[in-house]
Structures are given as structure tokens and as C-alpha cells.
């Protein structure tokens, strides 16, 4: 985590962050909460696993801080 990520305008014109520079935590933000959720005759979908009970998930999402932000928004 010593490398700083490329800055805004530079990154936006250069195109893409090289895969090895993609931080796992940024990737998981998107892969665990994003992407099309489908149902049907699945063997398994991650959406069906109660992620709240997964300790790793708890670590990734500091829920309390998120609540603070959402709370602050409501006061606006």
C-alpha cells in the first residue's frame, strides 16, 4: 500500500489502472455488492449467503461508520 494511485485527470486520460494495482478491498466493494443478481435454479449465488454472518464481510464493511454518514445526510 505504499504506492499512491494515479491521480484523477491523469488516470482518466490514460485509461485503466493495471490489474495488479487494483486493491483487493476496492474490488470486493464492487464484487460482493454489485453485479447482476439472478435467481432460478442456481446451485448457489453469493446473494443467498447471509454475508452479514461472514466475519470477513464484517471487517470489510465498517457498518457503524456508514451509519454515521447516512445519519449526517438525513440532517441536511
Amino acid at each position, binding site marked *: 500500500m505504499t504506492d499512491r494511485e494515479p491521480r484523477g485527470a491523469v488516470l482518466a486520460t490514460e485509461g485503466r489502472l493495471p490489474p495488479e494495482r487494483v486493491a483487493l478491498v476496492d474490488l470486493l466493494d464492487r464484487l460482493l455488492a454489485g453485479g447482476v443478481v439472478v435467481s432460478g435454479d442456481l446451485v448457489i449465488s453469493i446473494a443467498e449467503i447471509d454475508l452479514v454472518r461472514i466475519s470477513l464481510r464484517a471487517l470489510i464493511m465498517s457498518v457503524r461508520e456508514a451509519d454515521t454518514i447516512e445519519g*449526517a445526510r438525513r440532517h441536511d
Partner: protein
Amino acid sequence: MNDVGTYLYAVAPEPGSPTPEGLTGVAGEPVRTISSAGLIAYVSTVPLEEFGEEPLRRSLEDLDWLGRTARLHHHVVEAVAEATPTAPVRLVTVYNDEEQVRELLERKHDDFIEVLSRIADRQEWGVKAYVDPAVPPPAGGQGEAATKSSSPGTAYLKKRQASLRTREEEWRKATGRAEHIHDVLRSVAVASRRHHPQDPELSGRTEWMALNASYLVDRERSAEFGRLVDSLRGEGIDVELTGPWVPYSFTAPIETVEGRAPDDGP
């Protein structure tokens, strides 16, 4: 009973693009396509002894496994998205067989088309704002005054309360600035989505993460968006840009799983 499943990565409109040469999936098997109803699904075969429900409940707890799988999944999605508008599918979506994927494409055709048209010619950008919490509250001032007028215990409590108040105040200011940044960036974006702030242990930074969000931006406005991000930096706030991402955060529900709202949980 099959001992293999069909892992689904992404859906694209036909004609789409041929599967990139030598592209392999999460279990090392080649990525292939299934076509139906004018849509193409990108899939690969996975062993159920690793991708069945029970093994997954365990392996999802394993950061090494999760990290490896996430990167392999991401690699496939990016390779596909390079050539065609692509709707990424949630990590670890496994079907029993190809026929079920074909059925899905038929049954959910209109929804996929809707998602694909929403993200066509657009990119997701990730923005995180870090606030360096201001220096700790002054040791003198109020604290000393309190010491004179009350017992050491009360003085300590008052000091502690003052320090907590200051911290709260700082946090309020930080979130206020984060909201401002969010509003400014939203004005250039087609859509936005907030993520939870990352734990410092994972972000690798000690500052407060006051904003962690994604923005869906027209491809032609990406340079403008980047400049805007640059302009928001300063005065104790750092703004970090990541991307462009395949629009993972903007594929909002094709089909919601009953009784579950992933973003509104308790």
C-alpha cells in the same frame, strides 16, 4: 447428480465478441459462451466440491481464496468488457447446467437489455475521500480551567468529554465535506452509489474514510470527471480515484432475492 456446475460471469448482447483466446475462469477451465434470445452468457465449468454451497460457506471466510477468486472473476469480466458492453454478474453465481443459463437469458432478456443499455458507453469510477483528523484537542484551555474548579475525577471526565466533542465535531465537518464532494461529482455523473467506508486495516490508510462511492460517467466525460476529482483535493482532504471499472455497481437488481435488500440491511 452432477459434480460440476456452470459459473456465470457476465452477459453481453449478440453478436458480442468471441471469447478471448486462452481466457480461463475461476477454476482454471476455459471460458466459453452460451447464446440465447440475442444475448451471450460467458461461463466456465467449476467443480462443485469447491463451488457447491457448503464448501463456499467456508471458503468465503478465507481471504486468500476470496481474493484469488475475485481477481479471476474480475479478469474474465474485464476481458469480455473490453470488446462489448457487458453486464457483470454477481461474484459466485453457479448454475447446475448450461440449459438453466439458456433459460435465464430467455426469461430475463428484457431486464438484461435494460441494464446493458443503461451502462453502454459509460464507465464506473470509484472515489474515496480521506480526511486527516485535525490535531488532538488542545491540552490547555478548558481542561486547565476545569482542573481548578473541580476534583481531578471531574476534570478528567470533562476533559474527556471535550475531547470526544471535538472529535465528533471534526467528524461532522469531515462528513459535511464528503457530502459536498459527492454532490459535485454527482453533477457530472449519470448515477452514483455509496459504498461503506473501508476499514483502515484494509484500506491501508490511517485517515478517516469519509466517502467511498461509485459514479457512472459517460465515457466522453471521463476526463472532465478526473479533473473535477483533482480540483476537490486539498485542505486536509485527499480524494482518490480508481477505475475505470466495468459498471459493477450499476447493474441494480434484475431480480431481487425475496426479503433481502443487500444495501439496507440492519
